[in-house]
Every structure is written in structure tokens, then in C-alpha cells.
């Protein structure tokens, strides 16, 4: 018993256990999602996060300890974003032919993302500090936290709101677009990436390669545009 305990203490202190847990959680989540036929509600990212969280809560593991192992997976996010340049260039003709609708949708979407969340938040009686933290919620976490800091929100709260937004968009995009009878996968993907950044982009890539491509464009461009207009809109709205 004592030996088993010291083995456990040893394992929890090495990155091996938490890295393995993350990979196993993903394989299970991916399998479940495949078995469910890629149903939008059975989102593999969401399932993976829930599985990992359950293990962390049950074993009373602090997140910082978990992240020492999981950081190796997290690190690959950077190269994966860089890698989206490859499908972008392979499909450059498709992208170039939609450049005008793309820019128009970017501007409209970016403004609607900010204005709608502030108005709705005020309607539901959220305090000012939360409204400010909500402003960059459609932008990828790293950039969103920077924007929150600049306009007077709370970066760590923004990280939570960004993740909730990403999940909402990734789960809702397919049923919503089907309901609206939109068959243009470039447009569908672009709206998923704009509203819900990396998680929306992961969903888009799993549905259709063109959708994924436009989602990655939307994510990158919205990060850029929001960091320019968020301070202006926040000062005007809040």
C-alpha cells in the first residue's frame, strides 16, 4: 500500500502521467465523437476537457501540476496554427476569389461580436467589469487576454469567457447553419472561426476542409481586427 502510494506520488510529479492522460482523454473523446457520427453536441474537445477535469478533481490534482505534463501538447498549438498556411496556399485560388465577401464578413462579424455581447450582458445585469472582460470573447485566448488587460477587463476571467464562447460556437454552428439552409462551406467555416476562434476552427476542419481553411482565416483576421476596434467600441459602449 505504501509502495503503491509512493509510486503514485512519483508518477504525479512527472510530466509522463499527465501527458498520457491528455492523449488518452483525446483518443476516448475522438472515438466517442466518431461513434456518434460527428454529432455537433458530442464535441470531442468538450468531452476531452470533461474527462481530464474529472480525473483532476477525483485525484485532487492542482491544475499547475497537470499542466507540467500537458504543456507538451499545448505547445504544439503554435506550430499547428503556423501549419494552416499550407492549406491556405494550396487553396489560394479559392481564398482569393472570395476575398471581398471575406473582408466584408470580417468587419460585420467582428463588430456584431463585440456590440451584441455588451448589449446582452447589460440586459442581463452583468457588472461593468464583466462586460469589459466579455468584449474580446470571440478572439483566440492569448490575444483576448491582452485586449482585456488594455481595456480594463480581467484577463483570467476573459480566458474562461473565451473558452465558453468557443465551445458554444463549435457546438451550435452546424445545427444553426443547417437551420438557415446555408450550404456554402466557406461561409459556414468563416463564421465558425470568427465567432469561436480555435475551437470553432477545430470543428470546421472536422466537418469540411474548405470550412476549416476559412475558419483559420477568420480566427487570425478577427484577432487582428478586434485588437484594433475593441478599445474604440468599449469606450463607446461601456
Amino acid at each position, binding site marked *: 500500500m505504501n509502495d503503491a502510494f509512493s509510486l503514485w506520488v512519483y508518477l504525479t510529479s512527472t510530466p509522463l502521467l499527465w501527458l498520457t492522460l491528455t492523449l488518452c482523454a483525446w483518443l476516448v473523446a475522438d472515438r466517442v465523437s466518431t461513434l456518434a457520427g460527428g454529432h455537433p453536441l458530442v464535441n470531442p474537445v468538450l468531452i476531452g476537457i470533461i474527462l481530464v477535469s474529472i480525473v483532476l478533481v477525483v485525484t485532487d490534482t492542482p491544475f499547475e501540476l497537470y499542466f507540467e505534463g500537458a504543456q507538451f501538447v499545448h505547445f504544439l498549438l503554435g506550430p499547428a496554427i503556423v501549419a494552416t*498556411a499550407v492549406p491556405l496556399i494550396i487553396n489560394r485560388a479559392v481564398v482569393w476569389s472570395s476575398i471581398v465577401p471575406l473582408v466584408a464578413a470580417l468587419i460585420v462579424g467582428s463588430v456584431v461580436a463585440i456590440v451584441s455581447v455588451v448589449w446582452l450582458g447589460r440586459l442581463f445585469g452583468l457588472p461593468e467589469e464583466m462586460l469589459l472582460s466579455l468584449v474580446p470573447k470571440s478572439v483566440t485566448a492569448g490575444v483576448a487576454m491582452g485586449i482585456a488587460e488594455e481595456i480594463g477587463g480581467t484577463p483570467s476571467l476573459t480566458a474562461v469567457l473565451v473558452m465558453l464562447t468557443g465551445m458554444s460556437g463549435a457546438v451550435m454552428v452546424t445545427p444553426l447553419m443547417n437551420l438557415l439552409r446555408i450550404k456554402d462551406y466557406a461561409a459556414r467555416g468563416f463564421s465558425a472561426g470568427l465567432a469561436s476562434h480555435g475551437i470553432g476552427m477545430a470543428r470546421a476542419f472536422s466537418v469540411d476542409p474548405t470550412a476549416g481553411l476559412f475558419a483559420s482565416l477568420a480566427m487570425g483576421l478577427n484577432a487582428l481586427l478586434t485588437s484594433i476596434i475593441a478599445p474604440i467600441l468599449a469606450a463607446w459602449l461601456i
Partner: protein
Amino acid sequence: MSYSIRRSFSAEVIRAIPIPVSPSRHQKAFALLQTLTLLLLCQFAGEVFVRSAGLPVPGPVAGLALLAVLLLVWVQRKPDLAETGLARHSTALIGILGLLLIPTGAGVVNQLGLLQGHGLAIVVTILVSAVLTMVATVFTFILVKRLMGVRS
């Protein structure tokens, strides 16, 4: 990389880009390392550029732009980018994007207390705002495309 290219600036640039070209079996592992090195170099350059210029863009997104520019030059001479190891590895990496988001996601579950009892109001706000954002974006995209007469 033994293909002959004329001596010009773009040829030098192309030669300098370590894109894995040959997919022969014993070179596959090496090609994978080449891809990873190229991606990391782009990310690194992007990070340095963004930090020193004080731009509000994440380093990887700047790295994406840099790699796109390099590849645009590259495809002028070798149009078969889709056949390279780089394309295969990139597709694989993008395919596991969901996995890469799990650690951050688990961290957020840890921080749900920050919602300070406003949980329901926040969730409703975010859900409705996400719907409005997606609807506005998708209709703008499709309307402008139709106005321009571009077929999907």
C-alpha cells in the same frame, strides 16, 4: 534537393526553405523533422517580429503569414505543394487541433469560480451573442458573394 534551378534570388529563397520533397520510406522520419523545424522557425520569427514591433497579433499567426509568403514564392517553381511531406504533416497536425486545446480547456474548468454567481446570465449572453455573430457573419459573406456574382 537535386533539381536544377537558375541562379536568382527566388531560387536562393526556395533552396533555403527546408520543405520535405521526397517521400521515400527511409526519409520519412527525416521529412517529419524538417516539417517541424520549418514550422518552429516560422513561429519563432513570427514571435520575434510581433514582440519587437509591438503588434497585437499572436506570434503563431505572424508565423502563419511568414510561412504563407515563403510558400507563395515556393509554388512559383514547384506547384505540387499538395504532394509534399509538409502538406501531409500539416494536415495531420491540423487534424489533432482538438487535442491541443484540451490543456487550456481543463484550466478554464478550474477557474469557473471567476464567474461569481453570474454563471447563467453569462452563459445566456455568450450563447445568444455567438448565434448573432455567426448569423451576421454568414449572411454578410453570402450576400456580398452574390452581389459580386461569384459562384460557390
